[in-house]
């Protein structure tokens, strides 16, 4: 992904990768950070920074008819009206959101 972008921009150096990480992605931030340097060695990402934005779970509350940020990924209830919520609108992300290129 990063290589493609870099190639498209005449081999621009990728200085940072911005990642969105949902609380339900099943991946731990610390593990990603600790493996990033090793995994990026010898690639276009070598020496770049990994910037992780952690996202809480947001679900649509059927009673409030509004998106609500859950207090915990272990309890799917609306923090306002305490109704059970199941329609997740945010929280599963494991997404490369943006790349910082030096050109």
């Amino acid at each position, binding site marked *: 992904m990063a290589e493609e972008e870099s190639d498209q921009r005449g081999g621009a150096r990728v200085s940072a990768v911005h990642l969105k990480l949902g609380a339900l992605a099943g991946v731990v931030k610390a593990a990603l950070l600790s493996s990033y340097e090793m995994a990026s060695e010898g690639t276009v990402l070598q020496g770049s920074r990994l910037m992780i934005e952690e996202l809480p779970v947001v679900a649509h509350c059927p009673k409030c008819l509004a998106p609500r940020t859950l207090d915990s990924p272990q*309890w799917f209830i609306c923090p306002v009206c305490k109704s059970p919520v199941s329609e997740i609108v945010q929280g599963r992300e494991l997404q490369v959101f943006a790349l910082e290129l030096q050109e």
Partner: protein
Amino acid sequence: MILQTRLVEVRQNVLKQNDLVARELRQRFHSAGVCVVSLVSSPGSGKTAFLESTLTLMRPNYRVAALVGDLATDNDAARLARSKAPVRQITTGTLCHLEAAMVRDALEGWDLDQLDFLFIENVGNLVCPASYDVGEDLRVVLLSVTEGEDKPLKYPTIFNTADLAVLTKMDLAAAVEFDLAAADSNIQRVRPGMPVLRVSSKNGAGMDEWLRFLASARQTPLVAASTGFVEAGRTT
């Protein structure tokens, strides 16, 4: 030359490749009319015994087959083969979960049109399998009574991506003083409204209800969208 830093939005899912293959698989399954059910759980929760019993009970009435993922051995495939249903092993090596491409490759040569149900037994693991769509219609999470009632709270992601929870080894529930009410409540906390079945593969208790559940799932496909697994946050 002065270097300028530019932020380029890419918005690509890290697991995009898997999602694409899973989508292709789901289309193939639907056009072949096969109902695909995946089983996920921790190691030792009774997936293989449950599946062996399921295959044996279903064979008189349905055309069934199974894929089974395992890190290193083909023990599970050998056990499932006793049901006389077609079974294929996917050996994942050091990988702790199945990916859509592995399922696709394992299906090579099978005529899906000739199947009513395909079961996919994932590698025993409550973490990574949650993130990988394998094209299933229905994801079933197993929780054995010997594991303790709080597993759903420890692994909310996998319970949240499932369509059905099955409590296994119910014949041992009294011996281990399993708190059914607490287990139910913990499941509902992380996945409100999820149906929960209680079975014993050993004495057959609850298997009727499970077979009825499968029959109705085949009639009215859930298309996995009910979980939000396909849609929520994974579309880009």
